[in-house]
């Protein structure tokens, strides 16, 4: 083994030892810290899976729309199906920590903005995290851009109040929120309390008149009707448009008369070609479900419903929302914790950003050092770094000015899309779709459309740039 590999191996072990020490030391200091360690180790596993499976929605749609390679998109779809089956099991046991989101066209619009942004940035919210773990500077910039944009956007007020429809304003004010929140001031506050909260919350099970926890509700309505059937139809489209022609061309070389069976074989071949992403998806699905179990168990043990109570018991009451809560989803989530740490920095710098719904009423802005979801994201980067180091795929990459510009623009769009859709490609799509939340597919439809437009714009931009360079050469 050469020196470089030994160095990388030592770094990998160093990262694992660091997280291990944090878990042991904090647990020794106070038993409650095990709640944060749960986030840490699940985040670590997510990071390892994402890096192993190259689980990036941006790459998936870019490969599909730009060069016609469906492998990653198929893998993402399969991962969603596998996660849905695990989720159905967890929901049927009544231990799910998931809450469905309001369903309306806002999810499509949010998904569209997010989709354009992720193509511009060259990585989705989860993809940027694991790529940061691989040493990619552009991905780190994307995360910074998502984080800052969300923190600013959630608190935006002033002239943006003039853009708020009167009906939203009236509805927001009538909600009777605590006076410290001031729901009638701020675009996002009035969007949330005046519009989004008025939309119906539904899963496929509740639409069919069943409960999510029933066997038929969880497995048939939410998983089968809500995920497996639409995924199979989408995969059929992908096969017909991008995969069929090349498969049948190859097939014709070994068989003269092709029939329906050959198409079935082609469909299956397309699916199994995405083994690596699907395996990552299966492991992700199992551990996402397991995280709900473990989190729920700890909530019962400590007699809490939210980590905010634990933080208060430990003497950390700074940045806890007016409801006494902090962001504590109990499952895999990406963007809110990114907004929180920047929100915390802004607050420390003197900004008054606890008067909005996002931070002040729901998620809080606790110190990132004791923020459970921040532990998950940092460990996710660490897990991806360990995997990359052990596979000799870790490399520091400095961003060029052009890539940095796209990263910032794309990250900003993703940040805005995330806040409008109440989540990113993970929280608003992957998790929601898998749990049978109707709004998940709406966000997905918008995200796919946005990615398509983003790819087309990028192609146009690149060709324009190349034409300019050729012109310059001619002169």
């Amino acid at each position, binding site marked *: 083994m050469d020196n470089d590999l030994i160095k990388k191996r030592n770094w990998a072990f160093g990262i*694992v030892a660091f997280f*291990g020490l944090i878990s042991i030391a904090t647990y020794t200091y106070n038993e409650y810290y095990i709640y944060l*360690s749960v986030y840490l*180790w699940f985040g670590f596993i997510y990071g390892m899976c994402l890096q192993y499976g190259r689980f990036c929605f941006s790459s998936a749609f870019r490969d599909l729309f730009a060069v016609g390679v469906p492998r990653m998109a198929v893998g993402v779809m399969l991962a969603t199906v596998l996660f849905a089956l695990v989720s159905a099991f967890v929901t049927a046991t009544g231990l799910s920590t998931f809450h469905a989101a309001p369903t309306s066209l806002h999810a499509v619009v949010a998904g569209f903005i997010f989709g354009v942004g992720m193509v511009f940035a060259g990585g989705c919210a989860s993809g940027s995290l694991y790529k940061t773990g691989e040493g990619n500077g552009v991905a780190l910039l994307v995360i910074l851009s998502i984080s800052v944009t969300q923190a600013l956007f959630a608190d935006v007020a002033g002239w943006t109040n003039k853009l708020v429809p009167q009906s939203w304003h009236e509805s927001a004010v009538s909600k009777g929120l605590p006076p410290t929140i001031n729901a009638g001031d701020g675009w996002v506050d009035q969007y949330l309390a005046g519009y989004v909260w008025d939309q119906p919350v539904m899963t496929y099970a509740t639409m069919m008149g069943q409960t999510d926890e029933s066997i038929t509700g969880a497995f048939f309505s939410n998983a089968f009707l809500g995920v497996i059937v639409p995924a199979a139809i989408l995969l059929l489209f992908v096969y017909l448009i991008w995969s069929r022609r090349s498969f049948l061309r190859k097939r014709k070389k070994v068989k003269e008369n092709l029939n329906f069976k050959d198409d079935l074989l082609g469909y299956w071949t397309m699916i199994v070609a995405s083994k690596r992403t699907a395996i990552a998806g299966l492991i992700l699905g199992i551990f996402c479900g397991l995280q709900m179990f473990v989190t*729920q168990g700890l909530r019962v043990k400590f007699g809490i419903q939210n980590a905010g109570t634990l933080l208060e018991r430990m003497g950390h009451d700074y940045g806890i929302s007016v409801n006494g809560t902090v962001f504590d989803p109990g499952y895999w989530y990406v963007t809110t914790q990114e907004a929180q740490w920047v929100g915390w920095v802004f607050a420390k710098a003197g900004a008054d950003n606890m008067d909005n719904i996002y931070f002040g009423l729901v998620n809080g802005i606790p110190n990132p050092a004791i923020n459970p979801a921040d532990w998950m994201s940092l460990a996710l980067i660490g897990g991806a770094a360990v995997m990359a180091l052990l596979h000799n795929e870790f490399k520091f990459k400095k961003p060029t000015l052009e890539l940095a510009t796209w990263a910032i623009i794309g990250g900003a769009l993703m940040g805005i899309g995330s806040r409008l859709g109440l989540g990113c490609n993970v929280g608003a799509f992957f998790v929601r779709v898998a749990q049978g939340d109707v709004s998940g597919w709406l966000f997905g439809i918008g995200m796919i459309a946005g990615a398509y437009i983003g790819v087309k714009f990028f192609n146009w931009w690149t060709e324009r740039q190349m034409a300019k360079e050729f012109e310059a050469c001619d002169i």
Partner: protein
Amino acid sequence: MKDELWGVILVVAIFMGFMMGYSLPPMFEVGMIGAKPDQSIGIKTDVNEDMQQYYKELQED
């Protein structure tokens, strides 16, 4: 690097095992897991029948 990866997986498994062992017993205790159909699901308390009646009446008030 395969052995090293298994080493990492082992460490992760140890921590996961500890956390699972830590969080599952409370769910058995309160009946969220493993409760029989005729058992009520909820945290065990020392509230006797008289007290239960008292609470019911309190709610009615």
